[in-house]
């Protein structure tokens, strides 16, 4: 079963990655990132069980906390940007170039 879990995790991670790359709405991009993080967590939990080691769960726990913090700050940034630019498209914020 471990293999199945891991492949599921890989699939979800890849789908999340594709989403990050093709979606322009910053909020959706964020959701895709969350999806990738969750996929990772699944792998951690799976390995924890595989090896009988609780530390996989510990790190999944930390990932969740950090993800929560990240979402808070990220969304705040999106809101701030939206407030001034009236847009949530990541392509609009492209001044930092060349």
């Amino acid at each position, binding site marked *: 079963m471990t*293999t199945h879990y891991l492949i599921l995790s890989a699939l979800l991670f890849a789908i999340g990655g594709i989403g990050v790359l093709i979606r322009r*709405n910053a909020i959706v991009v964020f959701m*895709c990132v969350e*999806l990738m993080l969750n996929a990772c967590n699944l792998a951690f939990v799976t390995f924890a069980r595989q090896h*009988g080691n609780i530390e996989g769960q510990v790190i999944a726990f930390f990932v969740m906390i950090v993800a929560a913090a990240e979402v808070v700050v990220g969304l705040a940034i999106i*809101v701030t940007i*939206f407030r001034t630019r009236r847009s949530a498209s990541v392509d609009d914020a492209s001044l930092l170039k060349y």
Partner: protein
Amino acid sequence: MGETVTFWVLAVASVAAALGLVFSRKAVYSALMLGVVMLSLAVLYAVQDAPFLAAVQIIVYTGAVMMLFLFVLMLVGVDSSDSLVETLRGQRFWAFLAGLGFAVLLALGFGNVVFAAPTGLAAVNQAGNVPSLAEAIFTRYVFAFEVTSALLITAALGAMVLAHRERAEAKATQKDLSRARFVAFGETGANPASLPGPGTYARHNAIDMPALLPDGSISQLSVNRHLARHTEELLEERSGELDASETPVAEITEGENSK
């Protein structure tokens, strides 16, 4: 056996939901799809000897994080359905190629490994999953934990600072607003009054149903424009009851205060 069934059901559900998350044009749908994935994963955690994580997944993710997403979506505007036309040359092609390649490579890699039967966490979880996790977190990883707490506080502070808007001018008083409304009325004829409520003759009290004016006509102003499409349905519904010609849509110009 039970685990296998659970897995396959949830695996299919979560992959489908994930695809839906990526490809739905509306951000709200994406958010809901993400919720589906998270719940599925929570169950899978529970199946894999991680009940505490499953609970946290539901509480933190599906509960808090998802709500936050939806809040922001509301702020930003739920109606903004994205255009799926790609503007960066080659972006989509390469994204799919890389994603597929990545997935295939990982899958191949995992597929090639022959795992022994999982050790299981039964031994570790003897005292219960939560105490054993707690022991790890508060002994060996206590420093990381404390740092995480600092991170959370910083994030909370950061979010407040970011979202806070410094007021550039004095806050408009009720008097100012009222004056502005009438100035606008004088100049453009905008409706100075408050928006109409559902109205005396309302047959629905749903927020997406427009109010009926005393003459029975529909006031579009009473509906949030994001929900305005329901007005069309209402008109169709009522076409039988009222003569179309007798129910002119009130054409009062939308004023600044209509929002």
